[in-house]
């Protein structure tokens, strides 16, 4: 007897193509995410508005000022008479950082005591405040070192030579392009959304329209029914990843440092995982809206807690343990490692194994929750 699977799959593909919105959406997604969104992912904060309150008026303090003015990170348009006025400007949102250099700073520094320079940052946004302070400190250090070298002011005569012995080498992303770090993650968002929302809504449509009951009374086994629904999405996932990789290469010049087949393998296992997950949710939901709420609840966690945007290592320990249950965690590591570092399959065995285990888990769950009769 001929297998029913290809026929069911043809039905799915026809239904998909007949929809007005879905095909467009599926093509727009990678274009939006891979083409446009990398422009947004810029962690570097530029144009930090800084006010310098210089009570020292020495060679050193003017040098610090000119270093700040010449830096790409800072803007020195605003000015203030005193600290209180500067703080007022900060509260109005005109100033992000106040550098105040106390009187006799240069003289006191030669003697090794005295009041320090104080930096005040608007830290409502902690990242921004922290970065502003970090850049300013670096700028001040470079100005101080410069003056110190020029005038023989250095306290410890060995320091100049020894500090030049520290060299820094950036591997895997030598230009320090944050977009190259984010592009693989954005590709994963495409997969994450397409492989969860679409199969879920597809099954829920059948449930709400009652057509699933017609299928249930046919001799079609539940596996054939589910596979016919999911196989097209697995293939779609691979096509979309291919498209996203092409876009990343054509527009941002990013090609995998490692074997592209590893990317495809990761993408395939991930799409297995996520579609199994969404079938489970479909099985336990009664209405489409309810199903979407449950799925959204998990997808937003996958997006924000899997290391896509913020590093997992800076989360508290309990949250780090939680992420072991999140499939995106593994695929993000695979994508980023293979894309940027050329990590080998054998070095990523843990991530591939965990994806396989989670896929098996979700399909077992899906089988148990599926009921042919209501």
């Amino acid at each position, binding site marked *: 007897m001929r297998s029913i699977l290809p026929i069911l799959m043809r039905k799915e593909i026809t239904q998909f193509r007949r929809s007005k919105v879905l095909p467009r959406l599926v093509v727009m997604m990678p274009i939006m995410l891979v083409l446009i969104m990398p422009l947004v992912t810029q962690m*570097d904060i530029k144009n930090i508005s800084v006010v310098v309150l210089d009570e020292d008026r020495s060679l050193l303090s003017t040098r610090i000022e000119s270093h700040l003015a010449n830096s790409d990170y800072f803007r020195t348009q605003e000015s203030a008479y005193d600290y209180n006025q500067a703080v007022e400007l900060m509260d109005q949102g005109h100033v992000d950082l106040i550098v105040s250099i106390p009187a006799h700073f240069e003289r006191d520094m030669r003697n090794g005591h005295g009041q320090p320079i*104080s930096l005040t940052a608007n830290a409502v946004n902690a990242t921004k405040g922290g970065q502003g302070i970090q850049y300013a400190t670096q700028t001040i250090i470079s100005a101080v070192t410069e003056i110190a070298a020029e005038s023989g002011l250095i306290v410890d005569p060995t320091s100049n030579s*020894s500090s030049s012995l520290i060299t820094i080498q950036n591997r895997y992303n030598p230009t320090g392009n944050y977009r190259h770090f984010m592009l693989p993650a954005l590709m994963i968002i495409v997969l994450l959304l397409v492989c969860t929302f679409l199969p879920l809504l597809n099954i829920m449509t059948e449930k709400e329209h009652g057509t699933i009951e017609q299928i249930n009374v046919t001799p079609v086994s539940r596996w054939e029914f589910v596979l016919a629904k999911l196989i097209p999405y697995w293939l779609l996932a691979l096509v979309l990843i291919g498209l996203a990789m092409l876009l990343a290469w054509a527009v941002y010049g990013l090609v995998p440092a490692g074997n592209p087949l590893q990317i495809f393998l990761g993408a395939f296992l991930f799409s297995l995982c996520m579609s199994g997950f969404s079938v489970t949710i479909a099985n336990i939901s009664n209405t489409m*809206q309810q199903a979407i709420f449950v799925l959204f609840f998990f997808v937003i966690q996958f997006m924000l*807690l899997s290391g896509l945007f913020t590093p997992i290592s800076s989360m508290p320990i309990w949250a780090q343990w939680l992420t072991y249950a999140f499939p995106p965690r593994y695929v993000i590591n695979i994508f980023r490692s293979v894309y940027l570092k050329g990590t080998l399959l054998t070095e990523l065995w843990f991530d591939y194994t965990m994806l396989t285990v989670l896929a098996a888990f979700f399909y077992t769950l899906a089988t148990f929750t599926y009921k042919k009769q209501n």
Partner: protein
Amino acid sequence: MMIVLIMPVILLMLFGFAISTEINDIPIAVVVDEYTPEVRHDLTALENNPYITLTGVIEERDVDKMLRSGKVSAVVMMRDGQRNVVLDAANSSMSVSAGSYITSILRSGTMMPLAVTTYMRHNPQLKSAYNFVPGVMGLIFILICAMMTCVSVVREKETGTMEVLLVSPIKPIYIVLAKMVPYFILSLINLATILLLSHFVLDMPISGNLPTLLTLCVLYIILSLMLGLFVSTMAQSQVVALLICAMVMMIPILMLSGMMFPVENLPPVLKQISYIVPARWFIEAVRKVMVEGLAMSGIIKEFSILCVMTIALFAGSIKKFNDRLE
């Protein structure tokens, strides 16, 4: 609909506690050729630094392997009195911080101490929560509210009950408003739990006055409900309406609202787009009220923009609703 009440609580707690951009516990390894006093000094300095976790001493040939497999983020090579810091710069923003931590540790013994004190205004402990809690509020409210209302009209269309409503003598504006009310009440309960939790559990300050904050949040909730309604009047089917509200809107709200990435540096075109993301204005205003303690006069710009958006969405939905009537 229990999930609508429980979900925001869990998400807020989870994100409020777990999301952090602070970089600590950077795993590093060292390569040492000879244990001179200087090397020992540097090793102790690295070991004692709270931001760095020294995982061990490795062979030079393993450097690439360790970095590639992600076991360490940086390797410090100590040879002939030289210090070569090899960074895994795949995450460029993290590697910059790691590099500056490590160099400052290595320099500390020899370099003159630079006298700098820092003050973090409004957020002295540099808590990421001050940034993320308003962000998560902006994200959760708009998506949940929109997802609740976006099926309201389109479901009636799908099941055919819309015709009944349209031939009834009730004015469309009443139908629309009646559909909003239960969701509005649900959202108010959510608002109360979210504000209580963020203040008492997540330690978010409410520096500004509470009525201002509540007015702002209620306006945002109405806006979000209207957004869902608008999608509902436009969409052809429930599938499309839900896809738009849950999937399509999630991305711009996450990326263009200033929650994850700073909006100040966006390229001009994207900056224009970010102006139409309501969450952007809401998050900014909430930060101003909760953290900086500004009064209504300080957020008047954001508030009026949100007002205009609400009215536009309401007018749009009514118009679309009336179109069906004719």
